[in-house]
């Protein structure tokens, strides 16, 4: 077992500085976060409140008609504990406007519509609140592609995208995210009874160990098997990473000219600030 423990004070300091820098350099002082009641958005909200002050953070609760009451309640716990501003905007009417047109729509498509509806609400509220949308995806789900493109993955910047789920848990505990949120089974809560680990087919604890070897330590898949990981598990994860890479890059542009966006037009976002 690799030790994925992090120094939580150092992580908090670096991430808070990042949130503050990316917000203010873009000309803003505020942030907007979709707070679901889950651990990732709870952690992002704690960090944003730490970096910008609670009064400068707007937590948006966006329940769908089937979302559990627990999710709403846990989101409220985060809001109360961080002292951020909050609003609740149900997405039932927005999402159902499309979902109801296709009676046989799969759960996955419905889930994507919910995630993208929330993105619309967040970006809409961000204009009103004059704040940037803060991302809530962790490294594990980004690598596995366990997200909706242009949905929950949409954000202005992401403070926790280099932390594995296990590390998200460690940092959340250190920052005082309520135990009930840290300890519960992670779920996208797109339908009743859904859990991440049920859907993925493996646990975060296991996959974080594997991802750490594959990505951070640059082990080959064969070396991971030699380290004791099940061969099928390794193959599944490697394939997931590869097949979901499109979610991690900007859409490629067909190169025609001498200077093409994405290839040889290279500037940081912080250009000029």
């Amino acid at each position: 077992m690799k030790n994925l423990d992090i120094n939580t004070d150092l992580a908090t300091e670096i991430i808070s500085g990042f949130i503050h820098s990316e917000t203010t350099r873009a000309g803003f002082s505020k942030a907007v976060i979709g707070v679901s009641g889950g651990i990732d958005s709870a952690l992002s909200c704690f960090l944003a409140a730490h970096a910008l002050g609670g009064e400068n953070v707007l937590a948006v609760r966006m329940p769908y008609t089937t979302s559990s009451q627990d999710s709403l309640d846990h989101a409220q716990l985060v809001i109360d504990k961080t002292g951020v501003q909050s609003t609740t905007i149900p997405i039932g009417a927005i999402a159902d406007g499309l979902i109801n047109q296709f009676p046989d729509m799969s759960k996955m498509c419905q889930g994507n519509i919910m995630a993208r509806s929330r993105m619309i609400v967040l970006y809409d509220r961000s204009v009103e609140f004059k704040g940037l949308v803060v991302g809530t995806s962790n490294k594990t789900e980004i690598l596995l592609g366990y997200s909706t493109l242009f949905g929950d993955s949409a954000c202005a910047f992401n403070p926790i995208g280099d932390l594995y789920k296990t590390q998200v848990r460690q940092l959340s505990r250190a920052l005082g995210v309520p135990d009930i949120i840290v300890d519960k089974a992670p779920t996208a809560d797109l339908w009743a009874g859904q859990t991440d680990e049920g859907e993925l087919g493996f646990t975060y604890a296991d996959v974080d160990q594997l991802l750490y070897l594959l990505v951070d330590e640059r082990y080959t898949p064969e070396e991971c098997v030699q380290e004791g990981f099940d061969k099928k598990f390794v193959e599944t994860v490697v394939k997931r990473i590869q097949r979901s890479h499109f979610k991690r890059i900007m859409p490629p542009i067909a190169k025609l000219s001498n200077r093409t966006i994405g290839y040889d037009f290279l500037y940081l976002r912080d250009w000029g600030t």
Partner: protein
Amino acid sequence: MKLKLALAQINTKLGVVESNLEKHLAQIEKASKEKADLVVFPELSLTGYSLQDLAPTVAHRAVPEDLVFKRLLDASQDIDVVVGFVEEDLRNRFFISSAYLSRGEVSHVHRKVYLPTYGLFDEGRFFAWGDTTAAFNTRFGRVGILICEDFWHVSPPYLLWLDGADIFLFVSASPGRGLTSAPQLSTAQWVESINRAYASIFTSFVVHCNRVGYEDGLHFSGGSTVFGPDGDLLAKAPYEDESLTFCDLDLNQLHRSRSRLPLLRDERTALTQRELNRILNRDGSSSGR
């Protein structure tokens, strides 16, 4: 002889030379008021680090005719200044350079000789490689400048040592990375340990000025240091925050340390040269470029 040093551990605006210049002038004035003899700025202190396609647009030459350098040279009348910039040579090659300014003149320009082009780094794509690591004379003795990756390799500090440098001025804009359970990032630990090692094995002063701030997701952790000829930590700037950190270097310590530990006296340079020639001329050498 004493040298009062100031480490200007600053943040920069990416690609905005005018704004960074003003910050330099303010720091120089502050250091000068504190009676510092030398103020050292980090790598690419006039431009910011992750320049990419901005590199050619922020380039300057360390000459009095250059409007940016004119102001820096004017500011260097009473205090020596080491400043980091993008240098464009007469044939339009762009270098990551640091200039040593003293009494209104450019004493030396070092062009970075190792451009990291791996992992998160892409310097070789945008910059030309410097070709020399030369020590030079200052009013405080012989000095050598290296820039970041230059001193991650052992040979440039060694060459400067043999070229007479007793004070090593290392500058960097090093993105912090390697978060573990330790209280420092692994890069910060690594740099501190090698700088202490260089100071010890070269029985010299090793000054390291790192920058702070963020560029997109990259973060620069500061923690600039000064180590003395016995490997002692003489000064350390804070992590993360801008600071102007002062340190008095007692240059007589070189005499005392080298009396105790004559590593420089005993260094067998002819042996090194002979062995290097043998190794590099050998067919199928695995070490050499």
